[in-house]
């Protein structure tokens, strides 16, 4: 019999392979050369230091939104609100970046901290409503996403600029970029945020698996009744899970504000970082390490896709199909499980 741990590793791997195969079939049937297409994709993601830097840059916020969703999910909650929490974290980080004059060692951490608090607050509201009123977090977080979008746009126009579409730039002391790093990675937009994301992934793993806080959160996620029976406060844990999940997503916003862009601009619609985070968490089986790996994969696919039209003539949308197929297979892991078991039986 396959152990469940092996399943948890096999399912995402097989899903990714299936995604790539289906992508190849689609390329073939539309008359493109799939080998050329994937070579272009690979080179576009890892071909030189510039592309590698871009892949890292793209993966950074995805790791964090992935962690956000995975963390909530392990506590039995579905955080659709990462999208809005990203906006709030972004605007908060940029606000700190613009309005304070501090040395770098204080300015950057302060901006990230405020972003996490802001994102945490955005998660706290649905957490509070769920805990005290039983309102489903999915509904509230979706509404919070709209509010976040419009609140940040208002902030940019009225607080962070004078009626402009972009905020002022953050001070140099609040930036996550550094000249050395930029130069090393061929003048890509890479920044130190990747390290922060990795540290936070480690933090999430430690918190969930090694502490009494994680023990409670997971117990509540698995079985609320047993958690209540054994003296844990289900309400407090729901709120805490949403705050921490929101904080992760808030830091994802800070990565965009302090690293990639250095400012914030008005958005007509969502960044999709939060929604892609759902896919990341799903592919990563809601674990910290899984989210990191899945985020790097999606980051590479998205960045590499940009090289497919010029080099292989394949439209970038193909990568969206590949990602969709991967998600489809992960979500229908039941099918893979079934096939594997059949396969195993056939052997005997």
């Amino acid at each position, binding site marked *: *019999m396959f*152990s469940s741990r092996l399943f948890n590793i096999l399912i995402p791997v097989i899903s990714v392979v299936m995604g790539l195969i289906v992508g190849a079939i689609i390329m073939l049937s539309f008359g493109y050369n799939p080998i050329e297409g994937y070579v272009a994709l690979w080179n576009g993601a890892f071909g030189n230091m510039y592309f590698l830097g871009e892949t890292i840059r793209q993966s950074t916020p995805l790791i964090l939104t992935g962690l956000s969703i995975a963390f909530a999910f392990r506590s039995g909650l579905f955080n659709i609100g990462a999208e809005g929490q990203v906006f709030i974290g972004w605007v908060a980080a940029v606000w700190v970046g613009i309005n304070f004059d501090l040395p770098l060692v204080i300015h950057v951490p302060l901006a990230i901290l405020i972003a996490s608090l802001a994102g945490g607050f955005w998660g706290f509201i649905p957490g509070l409503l769920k805990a005290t009123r039983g309102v489903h977090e999915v509904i509230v977080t979706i509404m919070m996403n709209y509010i976040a979008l419009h609140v940040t746009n208002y902030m940019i126009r009225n607080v962070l600029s004078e009626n402009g579409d972009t905020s002022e730039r953050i001070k140099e002391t609040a930036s996550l970029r550094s000249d050395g790093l930029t130069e090393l990675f061929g003048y890509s937009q890479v920044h130190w945020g990747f390290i922060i994301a990795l540290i936070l992934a480690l933090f999430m793993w430690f918190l969930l698996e*090694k*502490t*009494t*806080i994680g*023990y409670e959160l*997971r*117990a509540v996620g*698995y*079985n609320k*009744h*047993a*958690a*209540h*029976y*054994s*003296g*844990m*406060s289900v309400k407090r844990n729901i709120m805490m899970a949403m705050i921490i999940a929101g904080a992760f997503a808030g830091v994802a916003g800070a990565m965009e504000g302090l690293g990639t862009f250095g400012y914030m601009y008005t958005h007509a619609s969502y960044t999709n970082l939060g929604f892609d985070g759902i896919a990341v968490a799903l592919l990563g089986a809601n674990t910290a390490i899984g989210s990191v790996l899945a985020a790097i994969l999606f980051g590479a696919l998205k960045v590499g896709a940009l090289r497919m039209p010029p080099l292989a003539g394949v439209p970038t949308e193909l990568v969206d199909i590949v990602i969709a197929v991967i998600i489809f297979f992960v979500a229908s892991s039941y099918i893979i499980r079934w096939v594997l078991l059949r396969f195993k*039986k056939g052997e005997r």
Partner: protein
Amino acid sequence: MDNYVVEMLNIRKEFPGIVANNNINLQLRKGEIHALLGENGAGKSTLMNVLFGLYQPEKGEIRVKGKPVKITDPNVANRLGIGMVHQHFMLVETFTVAQNIILGSEPTKAGAIVDLKKAEAEITELSERYGLRVDPKAKIRDISVGMQQRVEILKTLYRGADVIILDEPTAVLTPQEIKELINIMKALIKEGISIILITHKLKEIMEVCDRCTVIRKGEGIGTVNVSETNVDELASLMVGRDISFKTDKQAANPEAVVLSVKNLEVKDARAATMVKGLNLDIRAGEIVGIAGVDGNGQSELIEAITGLRKVESGEILLNNKPLTNLSPRKVTESGVAHIPQDRHKFGLVLDYPIGENIVLQTYYQKPYSKYKILSFKNIYQHASKLIEEYDVRTPSPRTKARALSGGNQQKAIIAREVDRSPDLLIAVQPTRGLDVGAIENIHKRLIEERDKGRAVLLVSFELDEIMNVSDKIAVMFDGKIVAEVKPEETNEQELGLLMAGSNKAKAGDV
């Protein structure tokens, strides 16, 4: 000459780290009720899951009506006419009875539309034929456990089963419901249906079964004709030693009052008052058994004491300190332990390893954690000790609670609660689903706690257990204690009457 409908020959089934079945033979005759007996974790559910196609055996042969078959999944089992009612039901709570029964084999009209009318008619017909009273239109969450079980049985009949496996069907039923189930089984075999019955209650085997196959620690021991055996022989076959059914104990030495419940009023989830001005005292060094028909407020009383349900009015005192409406954590810390009635809902986090379930109330204390960091070393050390002491059979303390047999899950909960040696130990149906050896062991533990000077509150629907273990019996009816009697001074008939609410005269002099 023998006309076997199902034969399982030399079956072997392994799980990581454990051989759950080895060399087991079971031959089922047409129209018989065949008992499957064995200790907790002996491998009964596993064997039946093999027959039902949920597990694939490593070795052995299965024959149905003489033909060798490979049962690769439950659909194959259904096609072969084998149906199973699991130890823990598998019904969709928000669906109606009829919807649950047809789920997966829905009758359709015009090729696509589910014909619920037709299904309901068929179900009514089936239920009349076998005396399985159900209301096809009721939602599962609104009906009693007994009726849910009848729905499960109907589900198998609806799929055309002529072999029905019942995995510990009586463990969750009240005595009245058990009588009803026995009648149903008798009606089923009259129609030529064959039944495999798993139960730990030897009396039931003696009453309804034709033959009994015994397994011990995964090994097949043999099959006996029930008419040629007796309860003691069955018990020693299954455990491998003699078992005493009457619990020995010294007379109680009651001391100061530990738990005092005064004029308690509690409502249930639908806001109906279930505990109506109840008074009860339990002293250190005594076991008080609450006897009563299910649904007379016992659950609400226990939940109120343990902080799981709000007290509307009245007072609960523990060692003269108020306990009313404290949080479950505060209640636990004041010295109350609680073996809950529903082990899957309250007692365990099934996806946690059994070892981590053993510190479910104490994980935040030293030595299991320090500065909020868990010490898995200390947790597992403690868990291993309890697993050993209470004979919880598990491949390892790191095995998920879900993978333990039902009875061993229960033993783990009991180990956890009794080990804290609290001032007040509340045990609700503590031996539900346990084998006779384990029951003996648990009863001994309860008496040991009493002898250490703890107060024990026992709630059980089994009068045997109440009569055997308690020092004092409090009869609960309609949300009140209507009588308090000594077990030596009463009998099952009198208790039965009191529990039914008659004999009001006696209630007056409490």
